């Protein structure tokens, strides 16, 4: 979009605020190097003002809508597109991190050819010539040509298909997580091979059979939103996780059924049987005989789930209509995965959920994804030397296909291999020619992530200059033309436009093409409400429990990493440094083992452990996890890259190497849950960097819960341990509260009784807290300051965080890092407690017991960032006023005034201040965190901190200032919700609410005075600006 942006590098550094170290002394700089203006004034870029473009996220097939923020022609932030039907404004961490794909220093800089083993830069002309030679030859001789793409959907997929057709070759859409069993099972049960739309919002009870629907399964952001809506209803919203290893999704469950691996089928059918026999179901009654064998006793026998629990679950499932059972997820993909999903379909069918919460209206678009069978056919023909030319774009099968499939070896037998991928990866590394493609944010394109959604990608910035890449579509067309086959339009853009003509007719009725196109680009695409497709039950496959291969050792559970998906996130430092939501480990792989099993092997936390199967062995640090069955070990996928850039290479292990050849009986999909392993202690020191080592909150009441019965008024409030909920004498303070306050105040060093204020005296903004009612001053004798800057402030910024909605996904963490230029520091420094993130999700495992499968599951997540305390302990100890309380209640941190005594951090009870131990912002230092061009992403509105200064969350003060400025420009008062910090904006469940406490009507005021509220470590009387809302505790089945 933008015109020629001629800033030179130094100016980027300056805009990005790098080199702050040099100038932090505060002296005005003598005029230094050159300032280069535009040659032609661009109509849509004003230096210093952000420009937003709509686009589509390509980090996973879900295809969320993006709003891309650019400054001076650089992309500096991506956020969810509120108008987009898929994600409605939110965005997961992987999506936020797409920026580091765009600016990844290891992107391929130019076309390259492999000459005697080494890569050699060549020109595009040369490259196309070489490619056309081989390709033309192959096409002319009718030899095999194959093209592998990721599940791009939309026009590019079509183009690739046509291209392959014209070349007389095959087009393979490769996705490691292909939902193949799901589609196959639905084909058999409902006659419709599709990934349905699970409506969590409507469900009153959810049972997940291993589906990690908050992490990688389906469309996580949309599902998280729906899930949160369901959980917000105290009277219903019960959630049971049935899985041998408690995933992040499972951690949000009220009840964890630690089923024996492979026993899920029996449980699903057993529940169905109970419903049928007891005639509870609203749905299909005719399926009795299919499940006759699965008596509760039989189920207990096959799945370790107590018989009466099976009944209780079934009854509750049937009673709460509509309910929802979900199966899927890599962790439960066994040799019987189709059977499992069919069993769950059957359960939904008998409970009458199909068409209610399991809908086939907005199905996810995996239609083109090749079944693994096809992949194997391609492998065979490559192996047989029938393929002369292989073109790969986006997909990385060499890494992501299990080792046993032999893809890599077969690929080596192909005569000539061309990669169109923009980033070096394992597959590209085995190619002969690299024709780098543009990053999604640089290119024009479209996607159809779900039925009824046509989403557009547009070039949000001029391609990053140091990378000489072309749009993949153009490259394909150029290849075709150069090697003389097919009839394609001159350019990819024309092809795209041509494909959009029917949509123009459909949606742009009466509008000119230009108008329609511009609107669609601005909106991010076009969409419609898809018609609900009704499906009928059309029989189920034979049910059988999967058998695990290999002796009697613990079962191997492989799961998709919430941070790295199938491994494509591993080259992004943000995602590497983003703690795993379960283990809080970073930059590594690990083996999750139950503490008792570990004790048997003499393993301590972090000790290297060797995991062996018939197929191979890996060695990784052990993570002792109470959330896994004693007879299982779990390893995340996505690490262990060999050629995926400096951030991914050599980190952790690729657990796919452990898989023995094994496929799903019905669909041929890769079976991930299939092996038993031998584990042994390996030599070497303990080495696992974690951001949170202690997962018990030692009765410190940082994460709190409240029984739903109390909320519904059917039970009395439990006796309180401390007064962290009570506002002394505040509105609605009951008698017992007051007593408690007395007791509380009588404790040493505590709250002094506030005094009534003189008539006309009003509490100034900075003194207002949710903790304390506005009509009182802060305490006896202490008159709030109302001089100077504090005279007529109108806002008290505050936040309310709903622990019931927070599911620990950590999208906020990445959003924060992106907005505030937070550097990544790597595993060694993190091991020494030097992580820099301004916000973290603390995980507290109150009750986590694999043995007691019928008991309550209590894992709590607390987003912890600067609490912007009213009486902040960090402030008075700073000798130079580098941190102080600003007129609008913010706990300010002035980086350039900080001398680095670190006293504030010592005195901060929440430990939310991070310190620049090294120089992360100086390019010449080894600790530099933003190697060119990662520094292009830096937000020019935020100072990049230099060595030796303290930094912390500021509620995104730059956004607050911008928001106030806009309101002032339009000469109107601020609207509630107009200003959103990055974390609140990015939160898929809207768990974080930001606003002004001075405005009693604002959402944050309302939340902060609700009945679930409390304050972390409240008995320190810090009067936090952040109010937490307790998580709801539900009755277990």
């Amino acid at each position: 979009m933008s015109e020629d942006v001629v800033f030179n590098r130094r100016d980027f550094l300056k805009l990005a605020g790098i080199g702050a170290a040099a100038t932090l002394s505060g002296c005005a700089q003598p005029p230094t190097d050159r300032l280069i203006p535009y040659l032609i004034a661009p109509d849509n870029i004003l230096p210093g003002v952000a420009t937003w473009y709509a686009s589509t996220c390509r980090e996973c097939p879900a295809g969320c809508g993006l709003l891309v923020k650019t400054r001076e022609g650089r992309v500096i932030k991506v956020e969810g597109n509120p108008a987009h039907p898929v994600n409605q404004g939110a965005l997961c961490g992987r999506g936020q991190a797409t920026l580091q794909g765009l600016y990844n220093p290891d992107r391929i800089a130019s076309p390259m050819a492999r000459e005697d083993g080494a890569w050699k830069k060549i020109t595009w002309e040369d490259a196309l010539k070489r490619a056309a030679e081989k390709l033309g030859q192959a096409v002319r001789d009718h030899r095999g040509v194959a093209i592998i793409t990721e599940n791009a959907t939309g026009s590019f997929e079509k183009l690739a298909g046509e291209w392959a057709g014209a070349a007389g070759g095959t087009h393979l859409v490769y996705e490691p997580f292909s939902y193949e069993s799901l589609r196959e099972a639905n084909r058999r049960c409902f006659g419709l091979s599709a990934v349905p739309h699970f409506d969590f919002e409507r469900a009153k009870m959810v049972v997940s059979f291993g589906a990690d629907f908050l992490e990688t399964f389906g469309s996580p952001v949309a599902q998280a939103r729906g899930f949160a809506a369901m959980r917000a209803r105290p009277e219903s919203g019960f959630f049971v996780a049935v899985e041998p290893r408690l995933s992040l999704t499972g951690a949000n469950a009220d009840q964890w059924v630690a089923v024996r691996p492979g026993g899920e089928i029996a449980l699903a059918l057993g529940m169905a049987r109970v419903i049928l026999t007891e005639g509870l179901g609203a749905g299909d009654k005719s399926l009795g005989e299919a499940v006759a064998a699965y008596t509760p006793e039989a189920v207990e026998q096959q799945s370790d789930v107590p018989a009466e629990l099976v009944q209780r679950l079934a009854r509750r499932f049937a009673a709460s209509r509509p309910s929802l059972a979900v199966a899927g997820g890599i962790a439960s993909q066994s040799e019987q995965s189709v059977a499992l999903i069919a069993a769950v379909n059957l359960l939904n069918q008998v409970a009458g959920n199909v068409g209610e919460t399991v809908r086939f209206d907005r199905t996810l678009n995996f239609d083109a994804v090749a079944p693994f069978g096809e992949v194997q056919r391609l492998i065979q023909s490559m192996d047989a030397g029938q393929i002369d030319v292989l073109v790969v774009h986006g997909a990385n099968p060499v890494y992501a296909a299990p080792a046993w499939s032999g893809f890599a070896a077969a690929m080596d037998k192909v005569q000539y291999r061309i990669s169109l991928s923009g980033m070096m990866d394992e597959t590209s590394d085995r190619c002969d020619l690299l024709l780098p493609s543009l990053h999604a944010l640089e290119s024009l394109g479209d996607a159809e992530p779900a039925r009824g959604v046509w989403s557009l990608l547009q070039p949000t910035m001029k391609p990053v200059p140091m990378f000489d890449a072309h749009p993949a579509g153009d490259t394909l067309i150029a290849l075709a033309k150069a090697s003389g086959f097919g009839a394609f339009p001159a350019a990819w853009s024309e092809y795209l436009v041509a494909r959009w003509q029917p949509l123009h007719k459909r949606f742009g009725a009466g509008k000119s093409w230009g108008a329609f196109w511009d609107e669609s680009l601005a909106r991010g695409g076009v969409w419609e409400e898809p018609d609900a497709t009704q499906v009928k039950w059309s029989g189920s496959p034979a049910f059988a429990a999967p058998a695990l291969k290999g002796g009697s050792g613990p079962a191997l559970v492989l799961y998709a990493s919430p941070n790295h998906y199938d491994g494509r996130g591993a080259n992004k430092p943000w995602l590497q440094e983003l703690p795993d939501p379960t283990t809080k480990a970073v930059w590594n792989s690990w083996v999750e083992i139950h503490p008792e099993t570990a004790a048997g092997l003499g393993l301590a936390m972090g000790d290297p452990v060797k995991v062996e199967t018939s197929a191979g062995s890996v060695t990784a640090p052990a993570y002792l996890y109470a959330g896994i069955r004693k007879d299982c070990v779990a390893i995340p996928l996505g690490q262990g890259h060999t050629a995926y850039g400096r951030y991914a290479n050599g980190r952790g292990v690729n657990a796919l190497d452990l898989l023995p050849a094994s496929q799903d009986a019905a669909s041929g999909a890769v079976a991930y849950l299939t092996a038993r392993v031998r584990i042994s202690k390996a030599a070497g020191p303990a080495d696992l960097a974690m951001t949170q080592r202690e997962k018990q909150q030692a009765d410190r009441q940082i994460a709190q819960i409240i029984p739903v019965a109390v909320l519904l008024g059917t039970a009395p409030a439990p006796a309180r341990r401390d007064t962290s909920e009570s506002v002394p004498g505040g509105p609605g303070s009951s008698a017992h509260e007051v007593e408690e306050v007395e007791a509380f105040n009588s404790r040493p060093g505590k709250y002094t009784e506030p005094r009534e204020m003189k008539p006309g005296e009003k509490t100034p903004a900075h003194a207002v807290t949710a903790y304390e009612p506005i009509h009182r001053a802060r305490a006896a004798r202490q008159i709030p300051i109302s001089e100077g800057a504090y005279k007529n402030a109108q806002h008290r910024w505050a936040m309310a965080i709903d622990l019931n909605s927070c599911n620990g996904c950590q999208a906020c963490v990445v959003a924060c890092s992106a907005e505030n230029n937070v550097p990544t520091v790597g595993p060694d420094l993190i091991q020494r407690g030097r992580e820099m993130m301004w916000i973290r999700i603390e995980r507290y495992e109150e009750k986590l017991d694999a043995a007691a499968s019928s008991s309550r599951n209590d894992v709590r997540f607390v987003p912890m960032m600067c609490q912007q305390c009213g009486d902040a302990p960090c402030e008075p100890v700073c000798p130079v006023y580098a941190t102080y309380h600003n007129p609008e209640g913010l706990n300010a941190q002035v980086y350039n005034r900080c001398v680095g005594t670190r006293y504030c951090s010592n005195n901060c009870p929440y430990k939310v201040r991070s310190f620049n131990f090294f120089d992360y912002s100086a390019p010449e230092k080894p600790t530099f965190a933003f190697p060119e061009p990662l520094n292009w992403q830096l937000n020019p509105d935020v100072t990049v901190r230099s060595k030796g200064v303290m930094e912390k969350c500021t509620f995104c003060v730059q956004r607050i200032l911008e928001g106030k400025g806009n309101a002032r420009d339009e000469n109107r008062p601020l609207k509630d919700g107009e200003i959103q910090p990055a974390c609140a904006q990015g939160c898929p469940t809207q768990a974080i609410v930001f606003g002004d406490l001075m405005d009693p009507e604002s959402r944050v005021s309302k939340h902060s005075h609700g009945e679930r509220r409390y304050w972390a470590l409240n008995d320190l009387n810090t009067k936090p600006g952040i109010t937490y809302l307790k998580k709801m505790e539900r009755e277990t089945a």
Partner: protein
Amino acid sequence: MGENEITYEPAMTPDDVGATEHVPPAMTQKSLNDDILRMIGKPGKVWWAVFLLDLTILAIGLIAERNQIVQGIGVAGHTRPVMWASYVTNFVFWVGIAHCGTLVSAILFLFRSHFRRAVYRIAEAMTVFGVMTAGLFPIVHLGRPWFPYWLFPYPTQRGLWPNFRSPLEWDVFAVTTYLTVSSIFFLVGIIPDAAAARDRAKHWFMKLLYTGFSFGWTGGNNQWKHFYSAYLYFAALATPLVLSVHSVVSWDFAVAQVPGWHSTIFAPYFVAGAIFSGVALVINLLIIIRKGFKLEHIVTLDHMEKLSKLVLLTSTIVGYSYLVEFFSAWYGPNAYERNMFWWRFTGHFWWAAWIMFSCNVIFPLALWFKPVRRNMPVLFVLMLLVNVGMWFERFVIIVSSLAHPFEPNSWGVNYRMSWTEAAILAGSFAWFGMFFLIFVRVLPAFSIAELKETLAAPMRRKR
């Protein structure tokens, strides 16, 4: 006030410890003069060897410090939550050391305990050099050590002032004041002796030097009059100062709300500890000097014994403070505090806590026995242990409290001392040693004038 207010009775009465016990009658004003001025002069081989070794260690420390300034404070072992560690420990340790000097010279002066006359010059020198060492560490431990001057109140075009509510700002005032006052006290005390040295000096340069130190002192009656009057007020000012300085230092911790820091007992507890470690070091230095310079007849075993009794006293105070802390943690309502103290002795840093306890409370119990107090080798070792213990006391208070904060999330990140820190710690001892070595060779290490006062003044008529 009046003359009787300033009493320098020539030591005649047997009850006066100043004379009969301490000074063999053989000694005359002249012999004293010679004995002490003998120390000044060309240093021997041993001195040079020690001095060069000292400079080498100092150099290593400086290199480490330079590296730390270039690389960033991260080369030290600090972590979140342990944001203060060995540097602040060293700071408190050296300030503590610095306390004994003023105690001996000022407080004992006001108490008229004459045995101080033989030891106070050494103690004062130790004070001055101790503060000079301590003063380095607040700067060393800064994240941006090139901005220490921002902590001083000076008018700028920015119109910014330091935050006088911050305990660190109190430190700035307390420590600079203490350095100034104790140096003045030290130098003023030297004036008459410098005059004596000047009158014996052979080399013109030394003559010049001592003329400078003596301010052209002639021992005129008018000079003596104002000298002793002023000396009294120095003592009167230094006494509350010395108490305030370590109280202020202790408030760095007591004012924060970190469990294990937030305690009202800290001020007296720290002052006692400071004197404890300071006197211990004085004893070590005296043992070396009186042996090295053959001054056993001036610094007698009685002096040493009196000092070691002081150590015993303060040791019991320190021990009492430890116990009271634990008791109130156990007895009080504060769960964080209770948990903290339990962790301190059983958690990751248990060893440090036990070193502290045994060196400061258990071993000094040996001082109850006279033979121990009068046995120099044993006393020397004992006093070394005391200072090890006192260093660890500060380490335990700072590091173990920080390592176990309110927020369980940050538990388990444990501080490990880095080589940089070790080198800088060693360097600080070398820095102190450098000044002290120069001092004993250049300035009279014992107060000639005051020692002369301990002798019976020459009278023709016997009283």
